[in-house]
């Protein structure tokens, strides 16, 4: 899936550009995007170190585990494959809380921390597990209740009521998150997405 999409972006993009005589913009875009990607990754290091450091303290103090336990019924439904008391649960709860309250800077490092914990439970290190896919889909569906950057853009553009979109945004956010959960839970049962896991079982 990801291979087809990735190739699709590049192949369609370059073919369209060649047909329309835009070859130079492709070169510029490719080089500029590669630069941006490195800048973004390096830019994450500081904030990531901060949150991974705090999370280590929280973990050793038993806070991460307690957080996971606090929401156990929901977490058990969303991530049945993750054992009780596993630190992944606490990290996931913290990532979701940060997302809901719009703390984007904290949400990404906490989400990466959660992925690292989920990876410890993974037998096949290059293949996503069910809990990883569920966690990712929920994150890509957006959990943020107050879209503060959109409100700021609206205010800057001279809106008379910049916050009036919040109610509608919350409804759409909830709908997309529910759709994400239903979609992962159904798709993970499909044989085409299951194949690699079966192979892993056979190898063991």
């Amino acid at each position, binding site marked *: 899936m990801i291979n087809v999409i990735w190739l699709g972006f590049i192949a369609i993009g370059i073919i369209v550009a060649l047909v329309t005589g835009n070859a130079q913009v492709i070169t510029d875009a490719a080089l500029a995007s590669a630069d941006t990607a490195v800048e973004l990754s*390096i830019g994450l290091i500081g904030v990531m170190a901060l949150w991974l*450091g705090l999370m280590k303290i929280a973990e050793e103090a038993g806070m991460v585990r307690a957080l996971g336990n606090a929401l156990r019924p929901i977490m058990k439904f969303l991530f049945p494959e993750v054992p009780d008391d596993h630190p992944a649960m606490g990290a996931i709860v913290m990532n979701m809380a940060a997302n809901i309250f719009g703390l984007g800077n904290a949400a990404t490092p906490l989400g990466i921390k959660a992925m690292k914990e989920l990876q410890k439970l993974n037998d096949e290190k290059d293949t996503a597990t069910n809990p990883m896919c569920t966690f990712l889909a929920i994150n890509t569906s957006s959990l943020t209740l107050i879209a503060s950057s959109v409100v700021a853009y609206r205010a800057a553009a001279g809106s008379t009521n910049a916050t009036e979109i919040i109610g509608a945004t919350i409804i759409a956010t909830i709908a997309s998150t529910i759709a994400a959960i239903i979609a992962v839970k159904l798709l993970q049962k499909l044989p085409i997405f299951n194949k690699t896991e079966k192979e892993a079982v056979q190898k063991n």
Partner: protein
Amino acid sequence: MFVKFMETISVYAIPLIILIIPIYGFIKKVKVYEAFTEGAKEGFTTGVTIIPYLVAMLVAIGIFRASGALDILVSVVSPITNLFGMPAEVLPMALMRPLSGGGASGIMNDLFTTYGPDSLIGRMASVMNGSTETTFYVLAVYFGAVGIKKTRHAVPAGLIADVVGLLTAVFVTNLMFK
């Protein structure tokens, strides 16, 4: 009221978390400074690990965006989205949203300039932008950080969520503001 409450939380949450975690750890006899540096060590390697994944993703999306292929996609998809009550003007933003957060915000600001933030188009773009995430960026960063290459059903599930979120945004905006 609710907005005020959420804004207050957003402002105070981080300082309080940075205060409470080390204090609680200290009470629990954790060597807080040592534990912090031990955890923070991973920050650098994680950032560097993400680089190849993000380069792959952003270069592909960058090429696609620059080529003008999105305009062609808009003309193909707009007859369908019109049926759902989505004006053709907001479609480019909807298609851009999962690919590039900055790109989508750029289109949204153009729509604000052309039609005004309080027009139906301006409101719809706002709701769409606020209720979805940059799916491919999240995928590259989160899976990249742990070296996941085979993404299984994560991408289709994420895209289904995007479509549902965008269409809900259209319906709700038409219902509330038309």
